[in-house]
């Protein structure tokens, strides 16, 4: 009991520290963000006041990716057969169910929440602990939800674009959302309170590997097709987030207006 209490206090303490440094960061950004007003028409519809720094971190990430992450992801693809990789992805998605469910509720999307719950129930029970996406075969498709999207549904804009070391592209809103998602996750608290934090690390590692493997082709295509890879990634990031917020409703596709030049 004592150990449990200590752990809980420790976790609560580290949580407080995260939130505090996050708040300090927020006020810093709020102050510096006002100093320069970038023209969003040059920056893919998102403000990028820290572009210089972002580009530097982006270059660092590219280097780290080329020598560490990408080779590991390629090895993973080479060694592990496709059905097994799909199983890993399904299991990781299944573990995200509480976060997805919670965010659907917060977004007022009861239909989405029901789907998330049904998926988790079917895939955990029939799909052998989430390895098989049985619900997906039945037409209840996976929907990615996170607190960044919830904030967007609540009408909060991206804020500045940011490239985080190793984590990659994001926005102030979406990175803040990641912190809330972590705190929202019952698995996070349970593993922490039962001294099994190593499973959280393992899960994060598996998540990074699985995502990188999934993106191997897309990213190399984008890189080859782009003149300015950073600007392309920024554009794709913003568009992808907008599509996720709109739950890929085809009626919201092409939200941008292409003018009629001959009228």
């Amino acid at each position, binding site marked *: 009991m004592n150990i449990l209490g200590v752990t809980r206090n420790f976790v609560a303490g580290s949580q407080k520290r995260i939130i505090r440094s996050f708040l300090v960061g927020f006020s810093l950004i709020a102050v510096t963000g006002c100093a320069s007003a970038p023209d969003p*028409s*040059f*920056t*893919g*519809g998102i403000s990028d006041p820290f572009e210089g720094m972002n580009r530097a971190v982006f270059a660092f990430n590219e280097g780290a990716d080329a020598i560490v992450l990408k080779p590991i992801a390629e090895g993973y693809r080479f060694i592990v057969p496709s*059905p097994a990789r*799909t199983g890993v992805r399904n299991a990781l998605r299944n573990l995200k169910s509480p976060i997805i*469910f919670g965010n659907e509720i917060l977004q007022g999307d*009861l*239909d989405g*929440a*029901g*789907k998330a*719950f*049904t998926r988790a*129930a079917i895939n955990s029970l029939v799909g052998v602990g989430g390895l098989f996406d049985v619900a997906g075969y*039945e*037409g*209840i498709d996976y929907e990615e939800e996170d607190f960044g999207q919830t904030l967007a549904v609540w009408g909060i804009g991206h804020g500045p674009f940011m490239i985080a070391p190793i984590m990659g592209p994001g926005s102030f809103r979406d990175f803040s959302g990641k912190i809330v998602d972590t705190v929202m996750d019952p698995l996070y608290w349970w593993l922490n309170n039962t001294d099994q934090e190593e499973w959280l690390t393992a899960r994060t590692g598996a998540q990074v590997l699985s995502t990188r493997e999934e993106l191997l082709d897309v990213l190399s*295509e984008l890189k*080859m*097709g*782009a*003149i*300015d890879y*950073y*600007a*392309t990634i*920024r*554009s*794709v990031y913003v*568009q*992808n987030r*907008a*599509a*996720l917020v*709109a739950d*890929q409703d*085809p*009626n919201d*596709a*092409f939200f*941008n*207006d*292409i*003018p*009629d*030049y*001959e009228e």
Partner: protein
Amino acid sequence: MTRFFLISFSALCFALTGLALQGATEKAHASPADAHEKAAEDFIAQLANEGLAFLANDKLSLTQKKARFKKLLDSKFDIKTIGQFALGIHWRNVSDSEKAEYLELFEKMVVNVYARRFNEYQGQKFEITGASKRGKRDYSVSSLILPPQGQKGPKVSVDWRLRNKGGSLKVIDISVEGISMIMTQRDDFAAVMQKGQGDIEFLLTELRKSN
């Protein structure tokens, strides 16, 4: 407290499962409402057939496939609208001869970018899922690219934006999983133009390099 939360959480969950199952049984069915939407669907079906005809033809060399693809672009895509949009505000500061060279280089770049993906075609299935009118002269046709017969894999949603140009339809944008090609291109070019301080020559040099 925790227990109370868990119990109410589960109760809520079960209530919602009922709702979800009800929702899942109501399968949405899209059928084109009018002749124009049907025409837009047919246009994309025709485009896909022409594309698949050369993609699946192993006898053609890469150069021949590229030539076929360029023909398809010239006849079915509005390269001028796409290129003008991609250049954004810089378009009006550019001379006619620079515009002509830019459009030519731009189309070459598009051919080269897609040519790299020709060999990715391994019998994937193409399915049109619906069409709708957008604005005065535009149509959006949604489609799915499905894994080859008997294989499992992700479905990729592709939306085509068509514009009626003097009675004939032309593609002005393709959006893959919500990522619009025309927007991405514009943001890429905007960054290049910014780096070149608004000088089109800087972008043209980059385009010449990539071709």
